[in-house]
Protein backbone atom coordinates (compact mmCIF):
# COMPACT_ATOMS: atom_id res chain seq x y z
CA UNK A 1 0.00 0.00 0.00
CA UNK A 2 1.29 3.45 -0.85
CA UNK A 3 0.48 6.96 0.36
CA UNK A 4 1.92 9.55 -2.00
CA UNK A 5 3.98 12.20 -0.23
CA UNK A 6 2.42 15.12 -2.08
CA UNK A 7 -1.05 14.42 -0.69
CA UNK A 8 -2.79 15.27 2.56
CA UNK A 9 -5.03 12.77 4.36
CA UNK A 10 -7.99 12.46 6.71
CA UNK A 11 -8.28 9.89 9.47
CA UNK A 12 -11.30 8.57 7.53
CA UNK A 13 -8.99 7.65 4.62
CA UNK A 14 -9.71 10.40 2.12
CA UNK A 15 -6.81 12.08 0.35
CA UNK A 16 -6.65 15.69 -0.88
CA UNK A 17 -4.38 17.23 -3.50
CA UNK A 18 -4.13 21.03 -3.88
CA UNK A 19 -3.32 22.29 -7.37
CA UNK A 20 -3.89 25.87 -8.50
CA UNK A 21 -6.45 26.63 -5.82
CA UNK A 22 -8.45 23.49 -6.54
CA UNK A 23 -8.51 20.43 -4.26
CA UNK A 24 -9.00 16.97 -5.75
CA UNK A 25 -10.40 14.37 -3.34
CA UNK A 26 -10.37 10.58 -3.39
CA UNK A 27 -9.91 7.65 -1.03
CA UNK A 28 -6.62 5.96 -0.15
CA UNK A 29 -5.36 2.57 -1.18
CA UNK A 30 -5.84 1.53 2.45
CA UNK A 31 -9.53 2.39 2.12
CA UNK A 32 -9.93 0.45 -1.12
CA UNK A 33 -8.15 -2.52 0.43
CA UNK A 34 -10.54 -2.46 3.38
CA UNK A 35 -13.63 -2.01 1.21
CA UNK A 36 -12.89 -4.53 -1.52
CA UNK A 37 -14.35 -4.13 -5.01
CA UNK A 38 -16.16 -0.83 -5.36
CA UNK A 39 -19.43 -1.22 -7.26
CA UNK A 40 -21.00 2.21 -6.91
CA UNK A 41 -20.01 5.70 -5.85
CA UNK A 42 -22.63 8.28 -4.96
CA UNK A 43 -21.24 11.78 -5.50
CA UNK A 44 -22.67 15.26 -4.92
CA UNK A 45 -23.79 17.58 -7.69
CA UNK A 46 -21.55 20.28 -9.06
CA UNK A 47 -22.23 23.50 -7.17
CA UNK A 48 -22.91 21.85 -3.83
CA UNK A 49 -21.18 23.40 -0.82
CA UNK A 50 -19.35 20.88 1.32
CA UNK A 51 -18.68 21.25 5.01
CA UNK A 52 -15.38 20.00 6.39
CA UNK A 53 -15.59 16.55 8.06
CA UNK A 54 -19.23 16.13 6.92
CA UNK A 55 -20.32 13.28 4.59
CA UNK A 56 -20.51 14.27 0.93
CA UNK A 57 -21.08 10.90 -0.72
CA UNK A 58 -21.14 7.14 -0.35
CA UNK A 59 -18.89 4.41 -1.65
CA UNK A 60 -20.51 0.98 -2.01
CA UNK A 61 -18.34 -2.10 -2.23
CA UNK A 62 -19.60 -5.64 -2.74
CA UNK A 63 -19.57 -6.34 0.97
CA UNK A 64 -19.36 -2.97 2.68
CA UNK A 65 -20.48 0.60 2.43
CA UNK A 66 -18.75 3.73 3.62
CA UNK A 67 -19.51 7.43 3.79
CA UNK A 68 -17.13 9.85 2.12
CA UNK A 69 -16.10 12.78 4.32
CA UNK A 70 -15.10 16.19 3.02
CA UNK A 71 -11.49 16.94 3.92
CA UNK A 72 -12.21 20.65 3.87
CA UNK A 73 -15.00 23.10 3.17
CA UNK A 74 -15.65 24.32 -0.34
CA UNK A 75 -17.79 24.19 -3.45
CA UNK A 76 -17.88 21.15 -5.72
CA UNK A 77 -16.69 22.27 -9.17
CA UNK A 78 -16.29 18.85 -10.83
CA UNK A 79 -17.20 15.23 -10.13
CA UNK A 80 -15.58 12.20 -11.71
CA UNK A 81 -18.26 11.06 -14.13
CA UNK A 82 -16.16 8.08 -15.23
CA UNK A 83 -16.95 6.37 -11.92
CA UNK A 84 -20.60 5.99 -12.88
CA UNK A 85 -19.69 3.53 -15.65
CA UNK A 86 -16.56 2.15 -14.10
CA UNK A 87 -16.51 2.32 -10.30
CA UNK A 88 -13.63 -0.20 -10.32
CA UNK A 89 -11.34 2.74 -11.17
CA UNK A 90 -11.39 3.50 -7.45
CA UNK A 91 -9.66 0.16 -6.79
CA UNK A 92 -7.40 0.26 -9.83
CA UNK A 93 -6.17 3.80 -9.47
CA UNK A 94 -7.17 5.36 -6.14
CA UNK A 95 -4.83 8.38 -6.53
CA UNK A 96 -5.34 8.81 -10.28
CA UNK A 97 -8.37 7.95 -12.42
CA UNK A 98 -10.29 6.92 -9.30
CA UNK A 99 -10.50 10.48 -7.93
CA UNK A 100 -13.98 11.53 -6.81
CA UNK A 101 -14.58 15.28 -6.63
CA UNK A 102 -12.79 18.58 -7.18
CA UNK A 103 -13.67 21.38 -4.84
CA UNK A 104 -12.80 25.06 -4.67
CA UNK A 105 -11.95 25.47 -0.99
CA UNK A 106 -13.05 28.48 0.99
CA UNK A 107 -9.60 28.47 2.62
CA UNK A 108 -6.95 26.62 0.58
CA UNK A 109 -4.48 26.83 3.48
CA UNK A 110 -6.89 24.61 5.44
CA UNK A 111 -5.36 21.63 3.65
CA UNK A 112 -2.33 21.99 5.91
CA UNK A 113 -4.49 21.00 8.86
CA UNK A 114 -4.96 17.56 7.33
CA UNK A 115 -2.65 14.65 8.06
CA UNK A 116 0.70 14.56 6.34
CA UNK A 117 1.98 11.46 4.59
CA UNK A 118 3.97 10.55 7.71
CA UNK A 119 1.04 11.12 10.07
CA UNK A 120 -1.27 9.03 7.92
CA UNK A 121 1.23 6.19 7.53
CA UNK A 122 1.66 6.14 11.31
CA UNK A 123 -2.12 6.07 11.80
CA UNK A 124 -2.45 3.04 9.56
CA UNK A 125 0.41 1.29 11.33
CA UNK A 126 -1.24 1.94 14.69
CA UNK A 127 -4.55 0.60 13.47
CA UNK A 128 -2.79 -2.59 12.46
CA UNK A 129 -0.69 -2.97 15.60
Amino acid at each position, binding site marked *: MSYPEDLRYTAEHEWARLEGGVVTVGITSYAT*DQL*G*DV*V*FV*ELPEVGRKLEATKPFG*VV*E*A*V*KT*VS*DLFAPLAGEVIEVNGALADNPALV*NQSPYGDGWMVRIRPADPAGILKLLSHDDYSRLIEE*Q*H*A
Partner: protein
Amino acid sequence: MSSATTLKRTPFFEQHRAAGAKLVDFAGYEMPLRYRGDVEEHRRVRTGVGLFDVSHMGEFRVTGAGAVGFLDRAVTNDVAALEVGQALYTPICRPDGGIVDDALIYRAADHHMVVVNASNIAKDFAWLAEQCPADATLTDVSEDLALLALQGPRAAEVLRDHVPAAALVLGYYRFMIGPVFGVDAVISRTGYTGEDGFELYFHPRHAATIWEQLFSAGAPHGLEPIGLGARDTLRLEMAYMLYGNDIDDSTSPLAAGLGWTVKLGKSDFAGREVLVRQKQEGAARRLVGLEAEGRRVPRHGMAIERDGRAVGTVTSGAFGPSLERAIAMAYVDSASAALGTALEVVAGSTRIPVRTVKRPFYTQGTHR
Protein backbone atom coordinates in the same frame (compact mmCIF):
# COMPACT_ATOMS: atom_id res chain seq x y z
CA MET B 1 -9.69 -4.58 13.54
CA SER B 2 -6.91 -5.54 15.94
CA SER B 3 -7.84 -7.46 19.01
CA ALA B 4 -6.25 -8.42 22.29
CA THR B 5 -7.61 -11.96 22.08
CA THR B 6 -5.62 -14.50 20.16
CA LEU B 7 -7.32 -15.61 17.01
CA LYS B 8 -7.40 -19.27 16.12
CA ARG B 9 -5.88 -20.37 12.85
CA THR B 10 -6.82 -23.18 10.51
CA PRO B 11 -4.15 -25.62 9.26
CA PHE B 12 -4.03 -23.59 6.02
CA PHE B 13 -3.03 -20.30 7.61
CA GLU B 14 0.45 -20.22 6.07
CA GLN B 15 -1.00 -21.08 2.67
CA HIS B 16 -3.40 -18.13 2.90
CA ARG B 17 -0.61 -15.79 3.84
CA ALA B 18 1.56 -17.06 1.01
CA ALA B 19 -1.32 -16.55 -1.42
CA GLY B 20 -1.59 -12.91 -0.36
CA ALA B 21 -4.89 -13.16 1.48
CA LYS B 22 -6.34 -10.26 3.39
CA LEU B 23 -6.97 -11.91 6.74
CA VAL B 24 -9.77 -10.94 9.11
CA ASP B 25 -11.30 -12.09 12.37
CA PHE B 26 -14.21 -14.37 11.53
CA ALA B 27 -15.89 -16.22 14.40
CA GLY B 28 -12.64 -16.07 16.35
CA TYR B 29 -10.56 -17.43 13.47
CA GLU B 30 -8.05 -15.52 11.40
CA MET B 31 -9.58 -16.23 8.00
CA PRO B 32 -8.99 -15.10 4.42
CA LEU B 33 -11.52 -12.41 3.46
CA ARG B 34 -10.19 -12.15 -0.09
CA TYR B 35 -7.11 -12.83 -2.16
CA ARG B 36 -7.52 -10.95 -5.46
CA GLY B 37 -10.92 -9.35 -5.24
CA ASP B 38 -14.45 -10.28 -4.23
CA VAL B 39 -15.92 -9.99 -7.73
CA GLU B 40 -13.18 -11.91 -9.51
CA GLU B 41 -13.27 -14.69 -6.90
CA HIS B 42 -17.04 -14.89 -7.09
CA ARG B 43 -16.96 -15.22 -10.89
CA ARG B 44 -14.20 -17.81 -10.70
CA VAL B 45 -16.51 -20.09 -8.72
CA ARG B 46 -19.51 -19.49 -10.99
CA THR B 47 -17.60 -20.10 -14.21
CA GLY B 48 -14.56 -22.24 -13.30
CA VAL B 49 -13.48 -23.57 -9.95
CA GLY B 50 -12.34 -22.16 -6.61
CA LEU B 51 -11.12 -23.51 -3.29
CA PHE B 52 -12.41 -22.39 0.11
CA ASP B 53 -10.80 -23.18 3.43
CA VAL B 54 -13.74 -23.83 5.73
CA SER B 55 -11.78 -25.67 8.40
CA HIS B 56 -13.17 -23.28 11.01
CA MET B 57 -16.51 -25.11 10.79
CA GLY B 58 -17.21 -27.46 13.69
CA GLU B 59 -17.75 -31.21 13.47
CA PHE B 60 -19.33 -33.53 16.01
CA ARG B 61 -19.26 -37.28 15.81
CA VAL B 62 -22.23 -39.23 17.10
CA THR B 63 -22.00 -42.97 17.71
CA GLY B 64 -23.96 -45.64 19.52
CA ALA B 65 -27.24 -47.49 19.16
CA GLY B 66 -29.18 -44.37 20.15
CA ALA B 67 -27.52 -42.03 17.64
CA VAL B 68 -30.33 -41.90 15.08
CA GLY B 69 -33.07 -41.44 17.67
CA PHE B 70 -31.05 -38.77 19.47
CA LEU B 71 -30.38 -36.70 16.35
CA ASP B 72 -33.91 -37.16 15.07
CA ARG B 73 -35.26 -35.66 18.30
CA ALA B 74 -32.66 -32.88 18.31
CA VAL B 75 -33.25 -31.47 14.83
CA THR B 76 -36.26 -30.56 12.67
CA ASN B 77 -35.39 -32.50 9.52
CA ASP B 78 -35.76 -36.26 9.08
CA VAL B 79 -32.51 -37.89 10.26
CA ALA B 80 -34.12 -41.34 10.49
CA ALA B 81 -34.75 -41.29 6.75
CA LEU B 82 -31.06 -40.74 5.93
CA GLU B 83 -29.34 -43.55 4.09
CA VAL B 84 -25.71 -44.41 4.64
CA GLY B 85 -23.77 -42.06 2.36
CA GLN B 86 -26.34 -39.30 2.44
CA ALA B 87 -26.16 -35.81 3.93
CA LEU B 88 -28.96 -33.56 5.18
CA TYR B 89 -29.34 -29.83 5.80
CA THR B 90 -31.26 -29.11 8.98
CA PRO B 91 -32.01 -26.44 11.54
CA ILE B 92 -31.47 -27.34 15.19
CA CYS B 93 -34.26 -25.72 17.20
CA ARG B 94 -34.97 -24.90 20.82
CA PRO B 95 -38.35 -25.80 22.33
CA ASP B 96 -39.52 -22.24 21.55
CA GLY B 97 -38.80 -22.81 17.84
CA GLY B 98 -35.75 -20.49 17.78
CA ILE B 99 -32.82 -21.75 15.70
CA VAL B 100 -29.76 -22.81 17.72
CA ASP B 101 -27.87 -23.37 14.46
CA ASP B 102 -28.19 -24.75 10.97
CA ALA B 103 -26.18 -27.89 10.35
CA LEU B 104 -25.33 -30.66 7.94
CA ILE B 105 -25.77 -34.23 9.16
CA TYR B 106 -23.90 -37.01 7.40
CA ARG B 107 -24.84 -40.65 7.90
CA ALA B 108 -21.86 -43.00 7.68
CA ALA B 109 -22.02 -46.76 8.26
CA ASP B 110 -21.03 -46.61 11.94
CA HIS B 111 -21.55 -42.99 12.95
CA HIS B 112 -23.16 -39.67 12.13
CA MET B 113 -21.26 -36.44 11.64
CA VAL B 114 -22.85 -33.10 12.47
CA VAL B 115 -21.23 -30.07 10.84
CA VAL B 116 -21.98 -26.74 12.52
CA ASN B 117 -21.04 -23.08 12.21
CA ALA B 118 -17.72 -22.00 13.72
CA SER B 119 -19.34 -19.29 15.84
CA ASN B 120 -21.72 -21.83 17.40
CA ILE B 121 -19.48 -24.80 18.18
CA ALA B 122 -19.55 -24.41 21.98
CA LYS B 123 -23.24 -23.47 22.08
CA ASP B 124 -24.29 -26.35 19.84
CA PHE B 125 -22.20 -28.89 21.69
CA ALA B 126 -23.67 -27.86 25.04
CA TRP B 127 -27.21 -27.92 23.66
CA LEU B 128 -26.83 -31.32 22.00
CA ALA B 129 -24.96 -32.82 24.98
CA GLU B 130 -27.91 -31.89 27.17
CA GLN B 131 -30.17 -34.05 25.02
CA CYS B 132 -27.74 -36.89 24.37
CA PRO B 133 -29.11 -40.19 25.73
CA ALA B 134 -27.05 -42.85 27.52
CA ASP B 135 -26.90 -45.06 24.45
CA ALA B 136 -25.27 -42.42 22.25
CA THR B 137 -21.89 -40.68 22.40
CA LEU B 138 -21.33 -37.14 21.23
CA THR B 139 -17.75 -36.07 20.54
CA ASP B 140 -16.41 -32.74 19.32
CA VAL B 141 -13.96 -33.66 16.55
CA SER B 142 -13.55 -30.14 15.15
CA GLU B 143 -9.82 -30.08 15.88
CA ASP B 144 -9.29 -33.41 14.10
CA LEU B 145 -10.70 -32.27 10.77
CA ALA B 146 -9.56 -29.87 8.12
CA LEU B 147 -12.24 -28.95 5.60
CA LEU B 148 -11.86 -27.64 2.07
CA ALA B 149 -14.69 -26.80 -0.30
CA LEU B 150 -13.85 -27.16 -3.99
CA GLN B 151 -16.66 -25.41 -5.83
CA GLY B 152 -17.53 -24.58 -9.40
CA PRO B 153 -18.56 -26.24 -12.67
CA ARG B 154 -14.98 -27.52 -13.18
CA ALA B 155 -14.59 -29.00 -9.68
CA ALA B 156 -14.96 -32.61 -10.85
CA GLU B 157 -12.26 -32.12 -13.49
CA VAL B 158 -9.76 -31.07 -10.83
CA LEU B 159 -10.36 -34.26 -8.85
CA ARG B 160 -10.78 -36.59 -11.85
CA ASP B 161 -7.59 -38.61 -11.42
CA HIS B 162 -7.18 -38.13 -7.70
CA VAL B 163 -10.29 -39.63 -6.10
CA PRO B 164 -12.03 -42.99 -6.57
CA ALA B 165 -14.17 -43.04 -9.71
CA ALA B 166 -17.25 -43.49 -7.51
CA ALA B 167 -16.69 -40.04 -6.00
CA LEU B 168 -17.10 -38.40 -9.39
CA VAL B 169 -20.56 -39.86 -9.89
CA LEU B 170 -21.86 -39.12 -6.40
CA GLY B 171 -25.25 -37.43 -6.40
CA TYR B 172 -25.85 -34.04 -4.81
CA TYR B 173 -25.84 -34.36 -1.00
CA ARG B 174 -24.16 -37.77 -1.20
CA PHE B 175 -20.74 -38.62 0.18
CA MET B 176 -18.26 -41.44 0.49
CA ILE B 177 -15.24 -42.21 2.57
CA GLY B 178 -12.17 -42.69 0.41
CA PRO B 179 -8.80 -41.35 -0.56
CA VAL B 180 -8.13 -37.89 -1.97
CA PHE B 181 -4.57 -37.75 -3.33
CA GLY B 182 -4.02 -40.94 -1.33
CA VAL B 183 -5.19 -39.41 1.96
CA ASP B 184 -8.19 -40.78 3.88
CA ALA B 185 -11.05 -38.34 3.56
CA VAL B 186 -14.76 -37.79 3.54
CA ILE B 187 -15.58 -36.78 -0.02
CA SER B 188 -18.91 -35.04 -0.12
CA ARG B 189 -20.97 -33.62 -2.98
CA THR B 190 -22.05 -30.63 -0.93
CA GLY B 191 -21.25 -26.95 -0.79
CA TYR B 192 -22.77 -23.55 -0.20
CA THR B 193 -22.36 -21.74 -3.50
CA GLY B 194 -25.06 -23.09 -5.81
CA GLU B 195 -22.41 -24.71 -7.98
CA ASP B 196 -21.30 -28.28 -8.39
CA GLY B 197 -18.51 -29.19 -6.05
CA PHE B 198 -17.03 -31.23 -3.26
CA GLU B 199 -16.34 -30.79 0.40
CA LEU B 200 -13.28 -32.69 1.61
CA TYR B 201 -12.79 -33.57 5.28
CA PHE B 202 -9.42 -34.99 6.34
CA HIS B 203 -6.91 -34.91 9.16
CA PRO B 204 -5.15 -31.53 9.55
CA ARG B 205 -1.74 -33.20 9.34
CA HIS B 206 -2.34 -33.61 5.59
CA ALA B 207 -3.32 -29.97 5.10
CA ALA B 208 -0.16 -28.77 3.36
CA THR B 209 0.06 -31.76 0.99
CA ILE B 210 -3.59 -31.67 -0.01
CA TRP B 211 -3.51 -27.91 -0.59
CA GLU B 212 -0.41 -28.21 -2.76
CA GLN B 213 -1.73 -31.17 -4.75
CA LEU B 214 -5.12 -29.57 -5.30
CA PHE B 215 -3.51 -26.48 -6.77
CA SER B 216 -1.20 -28.48 -8.92
CA ALA B 217 -4.10 -30.61 -10.22
CA GLY B 218 -6.25 -27.50 -10.49
CA ALA B 219 -3.79 -25.26 -12.32
CA PRO B 220 -4.94 -26.33 -15.82
CA HIS B 221 -8.51 -25.53 -14.75
CA GLY B 222 -7.70 -22.11 -13.34
CA LEU B 223 -8.18 -23.09 -9.70
CA GLU B 224 -7.80 -20.14 -7.32
CA PRO B 225 -8.26 -19.78 -3.55
CA ILE B 226 -11.49 -17.97 -2.68
CA GLY B 227 -12.14 -15.86 0.40
CA LEU B 228 -15.07 -15.40 2.74
CA GLY B 229 -16.14 -12.27 0.86
CA ALA B 230 -17.01 -14.21 -2.28
CA ARG B 231 -18.39 -17.07 -0.19
CA ASP B 232 -20.91 -14.62 1.23
CA THR B 233 -22.01 -13.18 -2.12
CA LEU B 234 -22.26 -16.67 -3.64
CA ARG B 235 -24.44 -17.94 -0.81
CA LEU B 236 -26.54 -14.78 -0.78
CA GLU B 237 -27.27 -15.07 -4.52
CA MET B 238 -28.58 -18.57 -3.68
CA ALA B 239 -30.52 -17.16 -0.69
CA TYR B 240 -28.77 -19.63 1.59
CA MET B 241 -28.93 -18.71 5.26
CA LEU B 242 -26.09 -17.04 7.13
CA TYR B 243 -26.43 -17.87 10.80
CA GLY B 244 -26.32 -14.74 12.92
CA ASN B 245 -27.70 -12.64 10.08
CA ASP B 246 -30.67 -14.37 8.47
CA ILE B 247 -31.44 -16.85 11.21
CA ASP B 248 -30.65 -16.98 14.92
CA ASP B 249 -32.05 -18.00 18.29
CA SER B 250 -34.96 -15.60 17.87
CA THR B 251 -36.06 -16.72 14.39
CA SER B 252 -37.95 -19.85 13.42
CA PRO B 253 -37.28 -22.01 10.38
CA LEU B 254 -40.84 -21.42 9.17
CA ALA B 255 -40.39 -17.64 9.18
CA ALA B 256 -37.09 -18.10 7.35
CA GLY B 257 -38.71 -20.07 4.54
CA LEU B 258 -37.05 -23.28 5.69
CA GLY B 259 -40.36 -25.12 6.02
CA TRP B 260 -38.98 -27.83 3.72
CA THR B 261 -36.51 -28.76 6.49
CA VAL B 262 -39.18 -29.04 9.18
CA LYS B 263 -40.78 -32.49 9.22
CA LEU B 264 -43.77 -31.98 11.47
CA GLY B 265 -45.04 -35.46 10.59
CA LYS B 266 -42.13 -37.30 12.19
CA SER B 267 -41.96 -38.21 15.88
CA ASP B 268 -41.42 -35.53 18.50
CA PHE B 269 -38.48 -33.14 18.28
CA ALA B 270 -37.29 -29.97 20.01
CA GLY B 271 -39.50 -27.10 18.90
CA ARG B 272 -42.20 -29.23 17.28
CA GLU B 273 -45.09 -27.97 19.38
CA VAL B 274 -44.36 -24.30 18.67
CA LEU B 275 -43.70 -24.96 14.98
CA VAL B 276 -46.97 -26.86 14.55
CA ARG B 277 -48.81 -23.89 16.04
CA GLN B 278 -46.85 -21.43 13.89
CA LYS B 279 -47.69 -23.40 10.80
CA GLN B 280 -51.39 -23.30 11.62
CA GLU B 281 -51.44 -19.62 12.54
CA GLY B 282 -48.87 -18.46 10.00
CA ALA B 283 -45.66 -16.71 10.97
CA ALA B 284 -46.08 -13.00 11.84
CA ARG B 285 -43.01 -12.07 9.79
CA ARG B 286 -41.25 -13.72 6.93
CA LEU B 287 -37.85 -13.70 5.32
CA VAL B 288 -38.06 -12.31 1.80
CA GLY B 289 -35.67 -11.63 -1.04
CA LEU B 290 -35.22 -8.00 -2.03
CA GLU B 291 -33.91 -6.56 -5.25
CA ALA B 292 -32.81 -2.94 -5.24
CA GLU B 293 -33.40 -0.35 -7.90
CA GLY B 294 -30.05 1.17 -8.69
CA ARG B 295 -26.76 0.24 -7.09
CA ARG B 296 -27.20 1.34 -3.49
CA VAL B 297 -27.05 -1.83 -1.39
CA PRO B 298 -29.42 -2.60 1.47
CA ARG B 299 -27.21 -3.68 4.37
CA HIS B 300 -27.63 -5.83 7.48
CA GLY B 301 -29.62 -3.99 10.15
CA MET B 302 -31.19 -1.33 7.92
CA ALA B 303 -34.87 -0.67 8.57
CA ILE B 304 -37.53 -1.30 5.92
CA GLU B 305 -40.53 0.94 5.40
CA ARG B 306 -43.73 0.66 3.43
CA ASP B 307 -45.63 3.87 2.86
CA GLY B 308 -43.61 5.46 5.66
CA ARG B 309 -44.39 2.70 8.19
CA ALA B 310 -41.68 0.39 9.58
CA VAL B 311 -42.34 -3.16 8.37
CA GLY B 312 -39.02 -4.97 8.77
CA THR B 313 -35.23 -5.19 8.87
CA VAL B 314 -32.55 -6.24 6.39
CA THR B 315 -30.66 -9.36 7.47
CA SER B 316 -28.10 -9.75 4.64
CA GLY B 317 -27.28 -7.52 1.71
CA ALA B 318 -24.59 -7.23 -0.92
CA PHE B 319 -23.96 -6.46 -4.53
CA GLY B 320 -24.49 -9.76 -6.34
CA PRO B 321 -21.69 -10.05 -8.89
CA SER B 322 -23.49 -12.67 -11.05
CA LEU B 323 -26.64 -10.56 -11.10
CA GLU B 324 -24.96 -7.17 -11.44
CA ARG B 325 -27.39 -5.75 -8.95
CA ALA B 326 -27.87 -5.14 -5.25
CA ILE B 327 -29.78 -7.89 -3.44
CA ALA B 328 -30.77 -8.51 0.15
CA MET B 329 -32.77 -10.69 2.47
CA ALA B 330 -35.00 -9.21 5.12
CA TYR B 331 -37.68 -10.05 7.64
CA VAL B 332 -40.88 -8.18 6.91
CA ASP B 333 -44.43 -8.34 8.25
CA SER B 334 -46.30 -11.14 6.48
CA ALA B 335 -48.63 -8.57 4.93
CA SER B 336 -45.62 -7.07 3.09
CA ALA B 337 -44.08 -10.36 2.00
CA ALA B 338 -46.03 -10.97 -1.24
CA LEU B 339 -43.84 -11.12 -4.35
CA GLY B 340 -43.50 -7.79 -6.08
CA THR B 341 -44.27 -5.64 -3.03
CA ALA B 342 -42.57 -2.23 -3.27
CA LEU B 343 -40.68 -1.29 -0.11
CA GLU B 344 -38.03 1.20 0.94
CA VAL B 345 -34.81 0.48 2.78
CA VAL B 346 -33.67 3.26 5.08
CA ALA B 347 -29.98 3.95 4.35
CA GLY B 348 -29.05 6.92 6.51
CA SER B 349 -30.72 9.98 5.07
CA THR B 350 -31.68 8.28 1.81
CA ARG B 351 -34.14 5.56 0.86
CA ILE B 352 -33.32 2.61 -1.37
CA PRO B 353 -36.36 1.53 -3.39
CA VAL B 354 -36.63 -2.28 -3.41
CA ARG B 355 -39.18 -4.91 -4.29
CA THR B 356 -39.66 -8.41 -2.99
CA VAL B 357 -38.51 -11.10 -5.42
CA LYS B 358 -38.33 -14.88 -5.65
CA ARG B 359 -35.50 -16.76 -3.99
CA PRO B 360 -32.95 -17.88 -5.00
CA PHE B 361 -31.88 -14.69 -6.74
CA TYR B 362 -29.48 -16.63 -8.96
CA THR B 363 -30.98 -19.54 -10.86
CA GLN B 364 -28.23 -20.47 -13.34
CA GLY B 365 -25.99 -22.47 -10.97
CA THR B 366 -24.86 -25.99 -11.75
CA HIS B 367 -26.50 -27.08 -8.49
CA ARG B 368 -29.38 -25.50 -6.68
